[in-house]
């Protein structure tokens, strides 16, 4: 990944984080005690900080880090959330957003940003000072808290210089500072007097010599001998920021009663809540599995012993140590055998300890549900944004790339069973063959899961297409002088991305048709007793493994008389045939290619708004179109589409001037063989490839195409080596072309009986590609 991509990703994620954080901050204000919210907020800020750190955007990190430290204390309960903290955080996050925008524009953070960042960071850290802590803390929480991250001044006895300050100046909350610059500091460009003079919130400033001034004759004005003492009522953090370049020359004290002794930290490992929850869940699950085990008939003594040990070990991981030790004690004193152990397991069940209720025994004795080690059903992911799960925005070409890679892997893995077979047959490696097969089944399952998963990722709500309709309807109806209301239902219904994309144009065509021909002018409608405003309804719903899209209008319906006439006029059907059609059949005439007139060229696509175009597009994605109409009342078009698409990868080959597709998972290799290398024996042809004899058949012959296979410029044949069951055969073709992902449509109707073909696929240019079934051909 190059650095621009990385930066783009960072910006994308950072914006997502900030959005979440902003929302959470508002939610937390309303529910400041909600631990889950606070933890989530902390995690978001923590992630943001981590990301900022990767890029060395110091001002950004400074601000976010301060926020993180603050939030860490809040979620630990050692700091009470209040309006001041909320404001500081919101302001800091707003500024962070500004910086991100700057980074997006310039690729970097401007140097000037540091000042503001410092100030915001200081403002945040101010809340960490002990004055804030004292208010909120319960003793137990304080003991458990991790060491405060703010620089709490060491509570030493007050130094003399501090005591020497005028009493009026020594007010609690103020910061006293002694600055002893080093002798050579002028040559470093420092100006200590100026620095001290500029301290924020300066209330008192004293200058004295560090040592007595030298005699005038030997006095060196460029050797710094100043000792500066000052008091400021600015927040300590501000003062620290001010002197950040000379921290070792500065001694700082907070003026007030010595702060509460730093919690004699028993730094208990503060286990993240989510981790604790996960562990509790797992422990309970394994606990219940043991209970089920104990209920199995004919359990061996050894198994009981092992289960006893398992319980002991689970208790060792159980967070509630008091409950665990009493359970342990009881366990140690148990009589041997499955029954006492089972009874104990019920009595000391960890879930009961916290919730007081227990899974019923009957449920437990039921057979153990095997736990999948892998991800739970992908169905969870679809549209999970609404549940508050984290949602990532990803650009579509990344998804497409992922899909390509998965497709490639799906094909690549297919080599493994073949290799296994070779290992066994050719190299006599039975063991190896078995291992390869085992590994293949693992990889195969993962690959299928991945393919399924990426298909799920590609699911988009149909609403993404419906979005543009409102504007479209408004503009066109205005242009035509009609009054139309667009009603959209079910825009959350999801379908595969390809399907949705291929629907965009057809849907627009259909809508335009409705607006042009379907819905009448207001005057006409009123005359017909209809409301002046027409309704165009687009409804989507899911039914089983299909998505149904209904587009209906309450217009004039299809005028079958006109349709029949037009079809005859265009020479699409003979006149007598046109007359004999039923009403419903007549309506279907609009699907005939060439039906739409040149004059009705859509300004959207430049092509005719023919229903044949619509039907093609829909069928290309394996869907169907149905049209029904009631004269005077309206028209309904129903699109039925697959939920996700089964894609087959085929290689295109050419022979006798025709193209065919061959499923990739049958293909072993493609190779060019010099004509002279082909052995002829009677009518059979063979070639030796990599030490194997491969029989050859000319595809033209198999397809009863009366042409010999063509040689290329180097007098070579193109041979497609395919694996059919246990045999390998080389097919002589004219040429290979690339591979392609297609949606295989099985042969239907009168074509079902034909052998040699697996089906057809509609290509992007509208042509039909026949997909071969070599097994049936040979």
């Amino acid at each position: 990944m190059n650095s621009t991509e990385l930066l783009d990703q960072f910006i994308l994620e950072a914006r997502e984080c900030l959005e979440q954080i902003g929302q959470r901050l508002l939610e937390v204000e309303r529910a400041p005690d909600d631990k889950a919210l606070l933890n989530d907020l902390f995690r978001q800020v923590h992630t943001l900080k981590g990301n900022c750190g990767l890029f060395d955007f110091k001002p950004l990190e400074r601000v976010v880090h301060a926020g993180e430290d603050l939030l860490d204390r809040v979620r630990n309960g050692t700091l009470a959330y209040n309006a001041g903290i909320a404001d500081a955080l919101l302001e800091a996050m707003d500024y962070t957003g500004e910086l991100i925008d700057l980074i997006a524009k310039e690729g970097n953070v401007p140097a000037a940003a540091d000042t503001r960042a410092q100030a915001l960071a200081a403002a945040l850290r101010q809340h960490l000072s002990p004055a804030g802590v004292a208010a909120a803390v319960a003793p137990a929480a304080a003991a458990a808290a991790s060491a405060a991250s703010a620089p709490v001044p060491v509570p030493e006895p007050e130094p003399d210089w501090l005591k020497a300050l005028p009493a009026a100046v020594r007010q609690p909350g103020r910061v006293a500072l002694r600055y002893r610059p080093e002798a050579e500091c002028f040559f470093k460009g420092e100006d200590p007097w100026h620095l001290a003079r500029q301290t924020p919130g300066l209330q008192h400033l004293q200058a004295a010599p560090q040592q007595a001034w030298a005699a005038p004759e030997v006095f060196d004005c460029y050797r710094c001998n100043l000792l500066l003492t000052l008091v400021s009522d600015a927040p300590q953090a501000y003062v620290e920021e001010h002197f950040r370049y000379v921290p070792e020359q500065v001694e700082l004290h907070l003026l007030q009663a010595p702060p509460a002794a730093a919690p004699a930290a028993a730094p208990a490992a503060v286990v993240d809540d989510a981790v604790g929850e996960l562990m509790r869940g797992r422990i309970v699950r394994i606990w219940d599995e043991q209970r089920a085990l104990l209920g199995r008939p004919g359990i061996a003594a050894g198994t009981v012993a092992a289960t006893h040990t398992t319980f002991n070990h689970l208790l060792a991981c159980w967070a509630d140590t008091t409950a665990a030790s009493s359970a342990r004690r009881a366990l140690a004193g148990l009589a041997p055998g499955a029954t006492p152990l089972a009874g104990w397991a019920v009595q000391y069940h960890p879930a009961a300890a916290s919730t007081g209720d227990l899974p019923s025994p009957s449920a437990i004795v039921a057979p153990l549900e095997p736990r999948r080690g892998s991800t739970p059903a992908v169905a969870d992911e679809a549209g999970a944004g609404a549940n508050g799960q984290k949602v990532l925005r990803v650009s579509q070409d990344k998804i497409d790339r992922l899909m390509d890679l998965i497709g490639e892997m799906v094909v690549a893995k297919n080599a493994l069973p073949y290799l296994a077979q070779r290992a066994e047959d050719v190299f006599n490696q039975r063991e190896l063959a078995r291992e390869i097969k085992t590994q293949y089944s693992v990889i195969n399952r993962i690959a299928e899961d991945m393919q399924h998963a990426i298909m799920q990722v590609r699911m988009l709500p149909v609403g993404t297409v419906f979005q543009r309709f409102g504007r479209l309807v408004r503009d066109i109806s205005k242009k035509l002088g009609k009054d139309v209301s667009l009603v959209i239902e079910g825009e959350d219904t999801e379908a595969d991305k390809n399907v949705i994309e291929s629907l965009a144009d057809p849907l627009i065509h259909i809508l335009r048709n409705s607006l042009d021909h379907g819905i009448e002018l207001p005057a006409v409608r009123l005359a017909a007793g209809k409301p002046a405003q027409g309704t165009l309804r687009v409804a989507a719903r899911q039914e089983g493994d299909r998505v149904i899209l209904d587009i209906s209008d309450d217009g004039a319906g299809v005028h079958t008389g006109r349709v029949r006439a037009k079809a005859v006029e265009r020479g699409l059907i003979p006149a007598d045939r046109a007359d004999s059609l039923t009403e419903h059949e007549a309506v279907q005439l609009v699907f005939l290619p060439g039906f739409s007139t040149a004059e009705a060229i859509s300004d959207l696509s430049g092509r005719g708004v023919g229903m044949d175009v619509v039907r093609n597009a829909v069928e290309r994605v394996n869907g169907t179109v149905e049209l029904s109409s009631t004269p005077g009342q309206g028209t309904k078009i129903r699109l039925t589409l697959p939920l996700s698409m089964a894609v087959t990868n085929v290689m295109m080959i050419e022979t006798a001037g025709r193209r065919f597709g061959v499923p990739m998972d049958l293909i072993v290799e493609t190779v060019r063989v010099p004509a002279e290398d082909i052995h002829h024996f009677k009518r059979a042809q063979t070639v030796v490839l990599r030490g194997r004899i491969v029989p050859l058949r000319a595809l033209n012959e198999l397809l009863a195409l009366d042409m010999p296979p063509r040689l290329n410029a180097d007098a070579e044949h193109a041979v497609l080596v395919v694996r059919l069951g246990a045999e390998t055969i080389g097919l002589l073709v004219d040429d290979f072309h690339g591979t392609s992902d297609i949606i295989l449509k099985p042969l239907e109707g009168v074509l079902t009986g034909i052998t040699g073909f697996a089906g057809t696929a509609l290509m992007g240019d509208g042509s039909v590609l026949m997909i071969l079934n070599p097994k049936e051909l040979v």
Partner: protein
Amino acid sequence: MPIRYLKKHAALEGQVSADDAEALGQWLRDQNAPVVHLGKCDQVHSAVLQVLMALRPRVSAPPADPWLAEALNAAAA
């Protein structure tokens, strides 16, 4: 020029930088009873402050900056 050397006194005006510290120190040493006028003085570099604190000239007009005035007062005391 931030420092005007007049017959009876040196007038420090505006912002007096480190470069002027040496010359001021020399002038003060050469005078019998050096006097400085700081009425129009806005800012001094630490080195200049050191000169004023170490050589302790009489201040005929205090600077506007109270902290500087205070520091010089304390030094003179």
